């Protein structure tokens, strides 16, 4: 992650790791502001996946762990998804399905947000058992933000991205790949969306127009005009 540098619009330079940390900080800060009940845990993958921060709703604790943690970018072993999902399974309690999951909201959901920053090492997935078990719950989601150098013949970015896309078994995941500073943070913003309330990734529309948006006549709308600037 340290081999690539990303430049912000203002001209500041960041390594991939610094940028990933920045994206996580913004994510945690925004999510906590949207709802203080959200909880976050932090898992780092070196030789194997290690939980370095267990679930907490205290955003300050997460941010502090992030700052203090010594995450060294490694280019050696491939990320092993089996270990990764097994570790997650050990540390996570998914809520029981009660009633119709399409109608009855659960007390909480669990979402894995994977930030991956390698451009040469393709993740492997020898056994999908743990992942499938987790995915058998309608309240488990996996999202990916893949930060990489510009794709070329010298790296494996496209192959890696394909592996991540294959993680999305039910079409509910958000998978992003970016190689520039601002788009990386924008993807982080899109990942703020609650998996049970957001549209499918390809259906999402964020652009707003500067023209007057007429109110639909058939729907009752509380304000008389909705002028968006």
């Amino acid at each position: 992650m340290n081999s690539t540098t990303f430049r912000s619009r203002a001209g500041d330079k960041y390594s991939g790791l610094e940028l990933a940390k920045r994206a996580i900080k913004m994510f945690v800060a925004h999510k906590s502001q949207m709802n203080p009940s959200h909880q976050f845990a932090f898992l780092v993958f070196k030789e194997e996946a290690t939980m370095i921060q267990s679930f907490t709703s205290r955003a300050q604790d997460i941010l502090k762990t992030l700052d203090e943690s010594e995450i060294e970018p490694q280019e050696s072993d491939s990320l092993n998804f089996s270990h990764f999902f097994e570790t997650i399974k050990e540390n996570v309690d998914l809520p029981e399905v009660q009633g119709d999951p399409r109608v009855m909201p659960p007390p909480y959901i669990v979402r894995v947000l994977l930030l991956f920053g390698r451009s040469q090492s393709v993740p492997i997935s020898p056994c999908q058992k743990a992942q499938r078990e987790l995915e058998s719950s309608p309240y488990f989601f996996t999202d990916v933000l893949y930060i990489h150098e510009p794709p070329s013949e010298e790296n494996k970015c496209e192959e890696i991205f394909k592996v991540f896309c294959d993680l999305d078994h039910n079409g509910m995941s958000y998978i992003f790949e970016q190689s520039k500073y601002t788009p990386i943070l924008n993807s982080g913003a899109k990942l703020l969306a609650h998996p049970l309330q957001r549209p499918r990734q390809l259906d999402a529309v964020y652009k707003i127009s500067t023209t007057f948006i007429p109110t639909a006549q058939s729907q009752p709308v509380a304000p008389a005009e909705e002028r968006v600037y």
Partner: protein
Amino acid sequence: MVPDREDIKKFDILIRPYLDCLLSQPNDHINLTSDPLRITDCFGGCLYSSTKDQPKCDRFTLKIPYAQQILSWQVIFDTSNLKEPPDFIFDAEDHDFHPSLADINSLVCWDWQNRESLAAVVAELLEHYRDYQLDRASSNSTLQRHLRSLLAHSPPDLQIIVNRAERGLGTLNCLMKVAVDFSNIPTYLVSENPGQHCAILHVCIPYPESSNIQAQLYLTSSVENAFGGSTKLRIPAFHSGMMMGDYFANVKALLENQVKLISEGFEKRKDYIAAFINHFGKSVLEYDMQSFTKITLLWEWNDFFFTFTVMGRFGPIHFM
């Protein structure tokens, strides 16, 4: 079989079901508040030399929370004759409270095999007791006017005590249920105890000619939460010259109005959020789908991404 409560274990086994029913099952016709009934001073009327280890109590004092005071009624069964209904001895203060036996249906038709029989008798006696207190209060013309105005509004479940004073009558305590339909309060506000919504009004007239009449409103905790907490409660002061019936009607109207405001506010918020989702559902980040007080969206304009949050209360949800 549910094991017997500690306080009734010392009673004869045939009496225990009556006591268990009386003490464990909430009964609106006996108790308006959550203060429990208690039994004290229990003893047995018979002496058994051969069975001294067996619990044989058959009489006790029943402490009944009533109109913010406590009634002490002695209840006397007879272990040698348990198919007969019990006798009652009332408070010394109420020495002239003698309801006619023939008027107490549940005593006349006492069913010793029905565990609810004792509770039924107590409830019916309390009705007679209320009438007795109303009569006592009517000996004072001011109190009579208050009570007449109150009874004109037919308050459900009324409890009243007029204490005697050195000369004439002293403090009047009145406890009544205010029948308000709480079913329109959104469920998320009252989810803990869905069936237990209740408003009880207590009015205290220190002495008949007093102009300083005190009133207090008690709500079940779920209703109190829905109204925004106990500090938000503001019932009107009882102005001198006002009749109890008018005051009762005012409080009832106030509560009904607040329920209406809460439920209308909720519906308005729901519509408002629905309008946002209708227009901008494809850029929703998160919205509160329980109380509909917040929605956050992600928008992009000219390559600039920003979050847009609408929050707050678009209608009053606090009791002010």
